């Protein structure tokens, strides 16, 4: 799936503004984010969706570069919308924007294809920076999400040998993200380049999504869904 995606950095070369779709049931948040993005000059909001279903339809229609997705929305949830968009339009980057960094929904949304997660309480410039980074193909992790991902992989490490695991270094990087270190700080601490830190985080994200597929596959085999009906 990752082959379909532009290499990180591709988008930076384009001079055009990043086309953003904002999906949130709160008009106040939509207005706020629109104001922040348009003030930045690097992005423009091409549409607003008030629930997950609308977001999926609008993505089909408009093919934006980035979707800013709230998790708690009526009718179709942010997680379901993320899954559908990731399947239909894998080149569209999805950034989850939610109120707390600790919900299980967040982890689920990232597993099914979101490229990152930021808190609603982030200041305007931070939101813009996050949009720029997901658009450039970088995952955006909060410390809370890093904690959830660590828990997830630790659970795996004790159950099944066939599932993807994190390397020692990836564990180290993830733990530092969870402790609140920035990529730059992690690079300094581990004597590696910032680019290498980004690659580690990218790999962690890929393994997480792979793990999700592995789980689905195992479920299907258990239930005999992989066999054709006779």
């Amino acid at each position, binding site marked *: 799936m990752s082959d379909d995606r532009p290499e990180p950095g591709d988008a930076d070369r384009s001079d055009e503004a990043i086309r953003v779709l904002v999906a949130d049931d709160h008009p106040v948040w939509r207005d706020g984010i629109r104001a922040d993005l348009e003030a930045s000059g690097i992005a423009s909001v091409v549409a607003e969706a008030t629930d997950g279903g609308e977001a999926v339809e609008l993505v089909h229609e408009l093919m934006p570069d980035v979707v800013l997705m709230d998790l708690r929305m009526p009718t179709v949830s942010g997680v379901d919308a993320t899954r559908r968009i990731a399947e239909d339009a894998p080149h569209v980057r999805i950034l989850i924007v939610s*109120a707390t960094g*600790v919900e299980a929904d967040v982890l689920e949304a990232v597993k099914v294809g979101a490229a990152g997660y930021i808190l609603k309480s982030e200041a305007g410039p931070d939101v813009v920076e996050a949009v720029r980074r997901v658009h450039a193909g970088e995952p955006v992790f909060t410390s809370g999400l*890093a*904690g959830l991902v660590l828990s997830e992989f630790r659970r795996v490490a004790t159950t099944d040998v066939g599932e993807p695991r994190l390397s020692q270094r990836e564990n180290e990087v993830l*733990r530092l993200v*969870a*402790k*609140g270190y*920035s990529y730059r*700080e992690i690079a300094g601490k581990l004597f590696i380049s910032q680019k290498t830190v980004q690659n580690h985080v990218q790999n962690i994200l890929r393994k997480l999504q792979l793990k999700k597929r592995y789980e689905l596959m195992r479920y299907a085999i258990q239930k005999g869904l992989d066999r054709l009906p006779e």
Partner: protein
Amino acid sequence: MARSTVAVGSEAEPGMRGLWFGILVYRWAALAWMTVAALTHWQPLDDKRLALVALLVTFAWNVWFSLRQGWLRQTDRLIDLAIAVALLPIGGLVMADQTILDELFFATAYPAAAALTMGAGTGVVGGLLAGLALSVALVFSRVTNGLDLEAILEDWGDLVNGAVYFTAAGGAAGAVRRVLLTSAAERAEALEEAARQHDRAVRLAERDALGREIHDSVLQALALVGKRGKEMAARESVSSGKVRELAELAGRQEQALRILLSEAPEEPPPGMVSVKTALEAAAFGVEGIPVTVTSVGPAWLPAQAMQDVAAAVRQALENVVQHANASRATVFAEALDGELVISIRDDGVGFAYDEDDLRGMGKLGMSKSMRGRVEGLGGVMLVHSAPGQGTEVEFRLPVEARDRS
């Protein structure tokens, strides 16, 4: 307390106390009847001195046995049984030769008290064995009374009657004991379950209290936002710092409220509290910078220890607010095998951490008190910092390794 009494001292069961009381009443009534029977039939007795000694010894033993609650001790129960067993052949001795089948028997029904006691004290098997010993002794009472084998066998009906009486008494008392203790065990289990439910209710109530506190602070924050907002609107120019302060206040409250609403309470084992919840409570209300609390997997600590840890974390955060000039702080907890690691990290100015220097400048006070708390729990405190690189304070605490399943 109450729970452990029931579980360990099963004899303290109300049902068992009732059983012992009933047997005690039987014991004394039978002894009284034995005495009355002996006195009213004193004249035909053959060995009056032995009869008197037997009566006095039995009486003295029963006073001692009752006062000392001898039924609770196996030695006392065995002595009691020995006396009862001895009374039967003695009965044959004190009565005039070959009158035992026609006259009122000297020991009467008293020996059954020993079978009842043994049964109630040790169970069905003990009771049956005691009854059997008494039955054998009953045969000997015929022998000591001078009856020959033929006469004894001819009277087999009376012997069987006596034997059935003694063994049934012992066995039945044992059966009653079993029933009482089984139901006591069930009750203890039910009690324990009730206590668990109570613990759970207390935890939920604690969470509720935390919730109320948060709700209250949210209301206050809202009132403040409203008031300041109006003030700002009235003023000509407003510094962006003031506005940001207000926005941060609202943002923090929103986050606290969301966490409370979105998360189901974790279920720690009895006596333990969730490290995450406690750390959130410690971080809540830290003014000046946003604090994020992150944890890996479920982690629990005993409530008492957690209080100290939370106090130390709170101190570390206050330190960050006062000295670090940081834009944010993160509290991170992870339960590794046998160790709980809690880190408080800020992105502030940092410093060259050297305890000797700090001591020289008289700045070690805060750090010492944190370290004291952590070391009091058998843990260690580490500080990683350098000028311009923020500060990470790390607490490493030993915890009992438990199965992660």
